[in-house]
């Protein structure tokens, strides 16, 4: 099959997008799960502090989300910009 240099670049960008988003989603999913798990454990032990613990959980998860958002941004860039 025939393809040009531009095709090759475009194809690589698409493959890169899939790899970036796919692999990039592993860490945040696991990390946020770990945070959530520990928060449930902590609330079970000290339910009075549920509000504080939920807030801390969400802040922690938000930070751990960031790498997933970086992956999303790069994947979108690879698909639509380059």
């Amino acid at each position, binding site marked *: 099959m025939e393809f040009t240099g531009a095709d090759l670049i475009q194809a690589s960008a698409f493959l890169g*997008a*899939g790899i970036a988003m796919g692999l990039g989603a592993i860490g945040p999913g696991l990390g946020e*799960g770990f945070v959530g798990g520990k928060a449930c454990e902590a609330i079970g032990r000290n339910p009075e502090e549920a509000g504080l613990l939920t807030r801390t959980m969400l802040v922690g998860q938000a930070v751990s989300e960031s790498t997933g958002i970086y992956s999303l941004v790069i994947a979108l860039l690879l698909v639509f910009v380059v």
Partner: protein
Amino acid sequence: METVFIVKAGQYLGAGLAMGFGAIGAALGEGLTAGYANVSISRRPANSPAFTRNMLVAQAVAETSAIFALMVAILLVFTDLSPRGLCNWAAAIGAGLSIGLGSFGSGLGAGYPGAQAIWGVSRQPETAGTMTTTMLIGQAVCQTPAIFALVIAFILIFKDFTGLPSWPTSAALIGAGLAMGLGAIGSGWGGGHAGGAACEGFARQPRLRGTLMTTMLVGQAVSQTPAIFALVIAFLLIFKDLSGIPAWPYSACLLGAGLAVGFGAIGSGLGNGLNASSACTAISRESGAAKGMLTFMLVGQAVGQTPAIFALLLSLMLVTVGPTEGNLLVTMAMIGAGLSIGLGAIGSGLGNGVNGGSACLGITRSSETSQGMMTFMLVGQAVGQTPVIFSLMVSLMLLFGNYSGVATLPAAIALLSAGISMGFGAIGPGYGNGIVGAAACEALGERPDQAGLLMRTMLIAQAVAQSTAIYALVIAFVLMFVV
């Protein structure tokens, strides 16, 4: 090029794959056993001969799977397969992948019962007599996947492929090797965890040996199922009549089928094993809970099996209704479909297993929570199933897509990449949701009065952990439909 060179090259590559991958698991498992033997001897130096003997027996069982790999590698190095047809280059690589990857889980898994048996005897020397038997039964079951892998490797080496079309037969043989090799990892590994926990529990509560053995064997049997799914697909791929089918895109369907069921079996196999392991630990912790434990474990395992069943279904669809004609777009879409559900099933399978296991542990804390715990576990598992359902959706869309457009390289790669994005992207959220659900079940066991608060926290945390799977789904859709 002449057949003999191509086949020889495949054989040597296959031998390398067999021995390289095949050496990992057994060595890890043996190291684990020896490590615990050392700790146990430092605790009771007087028993060192007994511990050393036990260690060597356990290590010998773990070694078996590596010896299978060695056998296949030697066969591949010294037999000339070229008289049995050109396709034997692929058969040799498939055989190497099957036994190489397939012996990892069994080798590593066999280490857990060994380690826990020695450790257990050092804590309860009076269990020494029956501990070795308990250990050997646990190890024997987790050896099964490696035996499946050996059977597939032997069939691939000794079957005659003369006169068959080079493609798609070659794809079927490599697909069979991938299916069985990858598909054996989780079941062997998970079965080992269950065996280890049964030995540990026996040391803690010697009078519960019978209950522990039953739970272990039932749990191991369920965690063995994904490997059987892989075995079925491997047989189907090897013995399917492929005469008259054009090479492409059907070759991609066969490879995709192997990838789907192979990767898809890992999570459920390991997860269900971990579930059984927690059930054994729970029984030894609170003997009163033993009665309902088996039901609890089986409900959790049934849900944990779903991702592997999705993968099996898609794999069967690729083989039976996969397109036999089409362009490069179809070819890449079929590989993408296999990767999406295969990889995507890993996280949810593992996560659901961990979640179910913690529910078993949770009911031992306060027996009156049993009903609430079941609800908790099922809600947590349902949310944890979402990533694999996304993956299944993407796979089905790729399988049944409309590929009438122009087949350019970028468009074809975009379809493959959609599968990669969704497949890998579902691993983390699937497992992460399981970790949250697991912790919520254990917390409920501690504080049954806080069920509402815990449920809310669990769902919020799972929703956040889900987000990256949704990003992966969005990117997969963009790659499939927008570009």
